[in-house]
């Protein structure tokens, strides 16, 4: 173990440069953020992930955000275990009828100000599962969504860009152009 730890000291870090923060669809989000939110949140956001019925593909890429290449935490973004500690709910999947109530309850358990980010093509409108008797639809059919990140699944790079832009807007209290 000592050798491994020692090597990590001497090797260059794997972590890559922060992504370019321009992302057009973030703009819409900015309008929902006020001064109060900015003061309260500073430059950090706590994220609670909710799988509302995904195929687990989106979760795999959200997980990857924590690896040494993306190192989400350096941006002040961290995953928390309870919705009560969260500023942001990151929701994946088409919302299944069997998960609808759990999603609503998690949303209600999250203190304001809060933002909902839907992740993956399924989360937009049910994706390829739309129209099933077991699926409500996209996340916005159940809780208000502030930002959508497209992809099946979105790559960690796409996720990181969107989340970093989100925190940028939150901390600057920026308005849509």
């Amino acid at each position: 173990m000592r050798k491994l730890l020692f090597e990590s000291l001497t090797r260059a870090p794997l972590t890559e440069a922060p992504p370019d923060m321009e992302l057009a669809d973030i703009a819409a989000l900015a309008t929902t953020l006020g001064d109060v939110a900015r003061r309260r949140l500073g430059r950090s956001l706590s994220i609670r992930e909710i799988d509302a019925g995904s195929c687990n593909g989106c979760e795999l890429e959200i997980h990857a955000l924590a690896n040494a290449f993306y190192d989400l935490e350096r941006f002040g973004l961290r995953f928390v275990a309870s919705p009560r500690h969260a500023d942001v709910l990151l929701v994946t999947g088409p919302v299944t009828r069997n998960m609808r109530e759990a999603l609503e309850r998690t949303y209600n358990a999250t203190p304001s100000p809060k933002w909902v980010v839907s992740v993956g093509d399924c989360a937009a409108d049910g994706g390829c599962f739309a129209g099933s008797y077991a699926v409500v639809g996209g996340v916005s059919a159940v809780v208000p969504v502030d930002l959508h990140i497209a992809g099946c699944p979105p790559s960690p790079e796409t996720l990181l860009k969107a989340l970093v832009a989100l925190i940028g807007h939150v901390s600057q209290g920026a308005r849509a152009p």
Partner: protein
Amino acid sequence: MQSMIKAMAGTPPHAHHPWPRRIVDADTWSALAAQLAEGRWTLAGLWGDAGAVHMALLDMSRGESQGELAVASLPCPTGQFPSVARRHPPAHRLERTIADLFGLEPVGAPDDRPWLDHGRWRVGHPLGITTETSGEGAPYAFLTAEGEGLHRIGVGPVHAGIIEPGHFRFTANGETVVRLEERLGYTHKGVESLMAGASLERAARLAGRISGDSTVAYSIAFARAAEAALGIEIPARAHWLRALMAELERIANHVGDIGAACNDAAFALMHAHTAVLRERVLRQSSACFGHRLMMDKVVPGGVAIDLDRAGAEGIRSLMATIRQAFPPLIELFDNTASLQDRTVGAGILSHALAHQYGCGGYVGRASGRAFDTRRDLAYPPYDSLRFDVPLFQEGDVNARLWVRIREVEQSLGLIDQLLEGMPSGDISVAIGHGPETREGIALVEGFRGDILCWLRLDPTGIVERCHLRDPSWFQWPVLEAAIEGNIVADFPLCNKSFNCSYSGHDL
């Protein structure tokens, strides 16, 4: 096989490939259930259809690498069939699912509670004769455990980590788990209803999204069932490219999960290192095939994208990187006493249960069940490759992790052979259809175990019925047994060592 087919003594229906299907009567059906209970066959699947139930049986009596599969079908004109679970418990949840989705009643079943249907769909028996329901949800009667000082802990469906939803109901005596009962179905998306009436192309995309971590394996299972039904031979290069993708998927999942399990035992260093390896595999997969998880790259008829010289070189250097980085991590895993303290002896699954339930993948292979579809019902190109099927006997968390470690090593060797011997030529053939109704079945080894796909195509090539059975169906139930007598705090670690799929199970 001959003995199994004789035992079925029924008439063959539509063209059904590559293994036989027989229509049987209720007596034969019950006799087969009794033979399952005796351990003569292994239950490989049990699913509903319009007015019928089907049961896939695996026969390993001829020994290693000589497995045979057959399907028995029982028409249910009165909406009933003799319960298999009454004699053979692994059929339990499958029968409850048949009752939920098709409204067919397993007569004599010991447990008649719904399984996937939580009373939220606004429709009863969505794949059978439908009824309207309120959709307001139905109460669920959890099993009880009684005694002094027992208390209950309910967890989920939303969990603390970034994981799929499911509910666990523990009954504990102090810290010790007396009973665990799982409740699943939260991610049920109605995939089988979406597949009915879909084109092959759309159904293949759905199959690749049943469990995102196994998208390649599912796509292969679906494609093989379709090709079997239509009697299509795909080019050799397509077989080899599929296997290359499948082994990359296996390595990515195994290295990622080995680290994640160590993380659940509070050993984060391992996780940090294996997550880097997993990321490297995903990046190389994306560079070669255009998608990090390789979704939609295996299609009926072959594969959607060819591997070029640069891609092959990239994979070779990835293999070299893993060969260098992996052994020191394994040494660390093996030499860290605090880690061993958590993994050795925790969550033991008995050989008897592993065999009775036909547990696939590392769950079975850590408990003495040496079954691997790639060897035992070999499909190309595995029938011409050299590899071992690692086997452990202890059945604990540690053994499950060791199987996965050894399988990473085997996959590295397989990828060497695949790159070395890759045939040249086309990567796909055109897919036709009909002219009559056709059926196909496939069993494919995903990282988690054997995935079954059964498919019926109508004369125009449209999917009439498709059933996909995740390996987790035969792993989730035995997790309940393996956790008994362990402390509640060890559940996350035990659960991770099984790493069952929620979405793959819930469909």
